[in-house]
């Protein structure tokens, strides 16, 4: 180990952002001049209802001196904006120091009140050799119209070398921002990647220092159904790499080789595995049956990845040891999700299948970018198996994941198929909407008191079932019951009662998750004189409405395509007959399909409703169409059935 150690900065940065919402200012008393315009500013036209804006932000990192200086200047527009005068600068005491903190308030008349107090050292977390503190202080005399500014220097141990990340947007509009990085020139070459920087700007190196200067940066805001934040925030990521390769194709080839060697060391060609595979499958099993048996066997291994984190002592007592290879996984009967997946790879090969390890990049937190030469993007593993002429992507290391499916984060993503020569990029399959369904079948009776009651059966398949099983994996029977009943209540009108009547299979990955309920909605139908009115679909009273806002800033992102299928039979009270039914609807769009029909026969109504959503990432320009589609769905669901009171003998 040399003098320097490269540490992944993601971890520390995550903690810092958690506390502050973002890094913050120059050492010394050299405050930048304040313009009359800044003093007089009442609001900013680009962010007219903002509580405050960042007038200036500066972040200068010098890896040769292991320090960063920060400078922040904010303009306060509202009472709420005054909260910005409370400052917390988090730091890890063992690794960093914060010094040269200077702060001041410029009153609207231009007079200055300097911060002359001493910052408190607030303990965020202390223990087990870690002291995570925050320099904490507040500025005096802050008023609406004030400018506040502060600056400080962060220094760290000279034996450490952190990756640097310039996260451009903050939670406030930024008028001007300047960044610079003076890299350490040593064993590890510095790389950087510009991601979504506005106005076509990029970080550029000039005389050994990388610079970026930007203006008018909108505030970042959260929206429902948005892509991962990492995919939306403009940023520059710097990382010191152990590889000197700068060409992406060659880089990934090189990394593919390294990864292959690591996997091969764990998987290898082991006789014991071949014997085990032979015991699991019968020689005359068709290939798919063989593969399914091997998959099921892998999933029987105790999956430590979904268990509660254990203390060291618990691990010692349970004799959980670090596993060296797939044979140990099989022999000991436990392993991480990743190890279980590699065990399956070995078993499949042992049974004679062509199978490859694949490292993929889950799309839960960011999307894979091959130009970002950072192998940490490939953060999960699956297996590619050739079955007859088909290629199957499988992930038995994800608990409850059925054969032939991947957890949604691994669907439709790029991965690196590992081979001795480095392998090649592959794209995993994205299951169609029909593979992940919520089916709701109800058999109900409308009472003369307007109450609707009966049975409801809910079946979840594919990714819907997988997600639910993973989310509720730690629940006991009572917890499962409550969780399901609460969810059904969310779909039904206020005041509905729901009672689970069966014991759903929470474990079996290959079976749909089926739950049976007894439901009662006390005031389902509304009385209007001699008529009764009620919505055509059972779930029209759902309290969840999608896309209620006319505008949005970011594209719409669904986790996976899905379908909802509802079938309801409703027995009507004898003293009423159908007066009017909604017209059938069937609308196919590029976003999905909505179908609803309602028929009356004898004293019974039959309603069928289907909704499918096919999109994954809907560009912003199509938002209006998407919103229109879901509004049309809501309108269709809200259509009313009208019953009219009759003599019993008159029913048609």
């Amino acid at each position: 180990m040399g003098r320097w150690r490269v540490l992944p900065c993601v971890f520390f940065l995550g903690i810092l952002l958690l506390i502050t919402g973002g890094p913050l200012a120059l050492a010394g008393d050299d405050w930048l001049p304040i313009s009359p315009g800044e003093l007089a500013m009442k609001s900013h036209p680009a962010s007219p209802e903002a509580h405050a804006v960042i007038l200036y932000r500066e972040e200068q990192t010098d890896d040769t001196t292991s320090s960063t200086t920060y400078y922040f200047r904010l303009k306060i527009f509202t009472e709420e904006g005054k909260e910005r005068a409370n400052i917390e600068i988090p730091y890890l005491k063992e690794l960093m120091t914060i010094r040269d903190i200077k702060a001041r308030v410029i009153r609207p008349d231009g007079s200055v009140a300097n911060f002359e107090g001493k910052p408190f050292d607030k303990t965020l977390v202390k223990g087990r050799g870690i002291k995570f503190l925050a320099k904490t202080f507040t500025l005096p005399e802050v008023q609406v119209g004030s400018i506040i500014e502060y600056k400080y220097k962060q220094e760290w141990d000279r034996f450490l070398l952190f990756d640097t990340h310039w996260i451009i947007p903050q939670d406030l509009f930024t008028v001007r921002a300047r960044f610079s990085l003076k890299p350490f020139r040593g064993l590890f070459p510095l790389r950087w990647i510009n991601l979504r920087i506005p106005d076509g700007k990029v970080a550029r190196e000039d005389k050994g220092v990388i610079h970026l200067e930007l203006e008018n940066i909108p505030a970042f805001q959260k929206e429902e159904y948005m892509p991962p934040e990492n995919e939306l925030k403009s940023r520059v990521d710097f990382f010191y790499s152990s590889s000197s390769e700068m060409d992406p194709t060659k880089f990934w080839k090189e990394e593919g080789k390294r990864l292959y060697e690591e996997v091969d060391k764990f998987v290898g060609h082991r006789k014991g595995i071949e014997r085990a595979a032979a015991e699991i499958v019968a020689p005359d099993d068709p290939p798919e049956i063989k593969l399914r048996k091997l998959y099921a066997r892998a999933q029987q291994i105790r999956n430590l990845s979904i268990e509660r984190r254990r203390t060291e002592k618990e691990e010692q007592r349970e004799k959980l040891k670090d596993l060296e290879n797939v044979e140990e996984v099989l022999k000991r009967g436990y392993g991480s999700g990743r190890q279980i997946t590699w065990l399956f790879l070995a078993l499949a090969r042992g049974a004679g299948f062509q199978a490859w390890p694949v490292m993929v990049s889950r799309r839960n937190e960011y999307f894979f970018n091959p130009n970002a030469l950072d192998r940490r993007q490939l953060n999960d593993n699956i297996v590619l198996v050739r079955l007859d002429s088909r290629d199957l992507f499988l992930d038995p290391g994800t608990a409850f994941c059925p054969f032939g499916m991947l957890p949604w984060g691994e669907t439709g993503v790029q991965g690196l198929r590992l081979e001795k020569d480095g392998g090649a990029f592959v794209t995993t399959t994205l299951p169609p909407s029909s593979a992940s369904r919520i089916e709701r079948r109800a058999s109900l009776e409308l009472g003369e008191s307007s109450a609707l009651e009966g049975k409801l059966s809910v079946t979840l398949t594919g990714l819907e079932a997988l997600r639910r099983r993973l989310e509720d994996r730690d629940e006991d029977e009572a917890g499962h019951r409550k969780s399901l009943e609460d969810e059904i209540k969310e779909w039904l009108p206020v005041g509905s009662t729901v009672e689970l009547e069966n014991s759903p299979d929470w474990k079996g990955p290959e079976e749909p998750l089926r739950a049976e309920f007894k439901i009662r909605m006390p005031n389902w139908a509304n009385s209007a004189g001699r008529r009764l009115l009620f919505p055509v679909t059972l779930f029209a009273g759902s309290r969840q409405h999608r896309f209620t806002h006319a505008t949005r800033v970011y594209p719409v992102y669904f986790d996976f395509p899905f379908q909802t299928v509802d079938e309801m039979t409703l027995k009507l009270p004898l003293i009423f007959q159908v007066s009017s039914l909604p017209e059938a609807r069937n609308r196919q769009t590029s976003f999905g399909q909505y179908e609803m029909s309602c028929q009356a026969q004898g004293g019974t109504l039959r309603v069928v409703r289907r909704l499918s959503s096919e999109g994954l990432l809907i560009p912003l320009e199509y938002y209006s169409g998407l919103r229109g589609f879901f509004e049309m769905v809501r309108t269709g669901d809200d259509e009313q059935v009208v019953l009219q009171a009759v003599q019993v003998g008159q029913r048609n």
Partner: protein
Amino acid sequence: MTNKWFSKRCKWASVTRAAFLLAALGAPARGLAGDAPGWLHALATVPLPKYADDPDVVRLLDERIITVKDSGEIKTLYRRAYRILRPQGRQHGTVVIRFDNETRLTSLKAWCIPAQGKDYEVKEKDAVETSLSEELYSDQRTKILTIPAAETGSVIGYEYEQKARPYILQHIWWFQDVHPVREAHLTLQLPPGWEYKANWLNYPEQQPAPLPNNQWRWDLANLAAVPQEPAMPPAEAVEGRLVILYFPNADHQKSVGSWNDLAKWYGGLTAGRREASPEIKQKVTALTAGTPSTLEKIRALVSFLQREIRYVAIEIGIGGYQPHGAQEVFSRRYGDCKDKVTLLSTMLHEIGVDSYYVIIHSRRGVATPNSPPALGSFNHVILAIRLPADVSTSTLYAVAKHEKLGSLLYFDPTDPFTPLGYLPSSLQANYGLLVTEQGGEMLQLPLLPPSTNRLLRMGKLTLSPSGTLTGEVQEVRWGEPAVSRRARLLDVQGAGRTKMLESFLASFLGGFTLTKAAVGNLEKYDENLVLDYSFVAESYAKKAGNLLLVRPRVLGQNSSDLLERKERKYPFQFSAASMETDTFEIALPAGYEVDELPPPVEVDYGFAAYSSKIEVSGSILKYSRTYQVKDVLVPTTQLGELKKFYRQVAADEFSSAVLRRTGP
């Protein structure tokens, strides 16, 4: 353990944040092999009855042994044990102990007796510490210790000792919990010549077992769980508690046997804090110049406090209770609740108006005249302003007559949105300790009448033959509805306000477009908040053959399903007495006539009333309704009526008018 004044929000949120950080920072505590103590093993063998409602855990033991030294130093040993019954109970394996410089933590150990296998032991060195809190800075700290193998079936227990020199010699024992408690014990060891006084609340008085050497022990067993129910009074208002006062029989200085004693103590603590500096005097003169009436002068000072003095809490040691001096608060332009009260009181004094500290709990019902006097019953400070005779109270609703002090106007300068004359809803009908020069007394603050908390919603709308509803709505709010909406609107930035309105409309309308939205008087806290908006809602009315079905109650929901859930044990508490009036005039499309209308509704249960009616005049259908909450507390004996009330409101809200096509 201390309970300092004032945190605006629950501190547990911060502890959760620390626990999250802990999770991010590294592995849980290393457990060591070690036998759990005999007392925990004894508890582990106790057979348990079958409990209703599937509790996550049973608290097997809550024990505290308080040893008082002649010097006034208090040593308290705490023991707690749980049997984990369900996976959700695992969170009890994370032990959270709060302490500060006055309540030092001297030892901490925890154990687990797993369902199978050997015991585990963890100690203080395995814990992490945090001082995260809602205050900008506080000397309060928290130790978080993770107990290994805290799984379903395990018995976990911990023991810690704290040494303290309390400001007041008293101990509050909250012996009930959201989970059932199997046994609870409190032992008090006093020095010779010391006495104690025990006060019980929400639980029958229990006599202690006398032990030798001035020692007493209280034993409780099989305590029922206190379930959390929506809209119930705060748990502290219904849970059993014992407040023990102890004191040397010759010296009662540090004991508070009455509210008057407590008020005197606080009076002493705040002595000298309300001295006006020349700068304060100058500011008062500047603020009140040109305002001849006393009331206008008061308004000017109140406005300064609400607008110019920022809420920032820095609490160290006695600073949790004792305000900073008025001069310091004024020069820094920030402070917490007691600091703001101190400065306002000082400024009022400069215009000849007396005022008094009122110590209160921010949740109604925690402290009442029946509660044993205790410092820990409060978490907030507001001001009682003694109104001079020349001040008219016609626009001041938060006024109550005091037999000696005359008209007292209660005011909370910490709440930036509640104007002078009103009170935040949680303080209305609440009890506070008035602190005067002579001592003090518990007083009930006024419950403001429904007419002071109003929402008036008026819509003029037009329905097309295709069912599209178009039109304008105006909402006028004052009192509590204005405060809560103003706070929400001011909290968001940019397009957030429009989105907030869209989310509201989406609860009632499908396929709508918000075509106009404006907020009036948003930052004029003394004036009515006015929202004007327009929308187009396609397919609002549903076609059914030659009929058009219209819901006349276009917007707003007063019904609730809170009473449709499990059987309740506790009263129902509204936030405030209030009145909401909706009027929607809908111009009907040509070629349609009214065929059937929902019947009018008129109900009054004493605590709440509701009326609605629909009138047709020419082609205008006019729906109007009034929803009124008249009392904030509905006792359990009237919960059936409240349930019925909500169902009647819901039936009206979802009823439809039927229009029939008359033309071709």
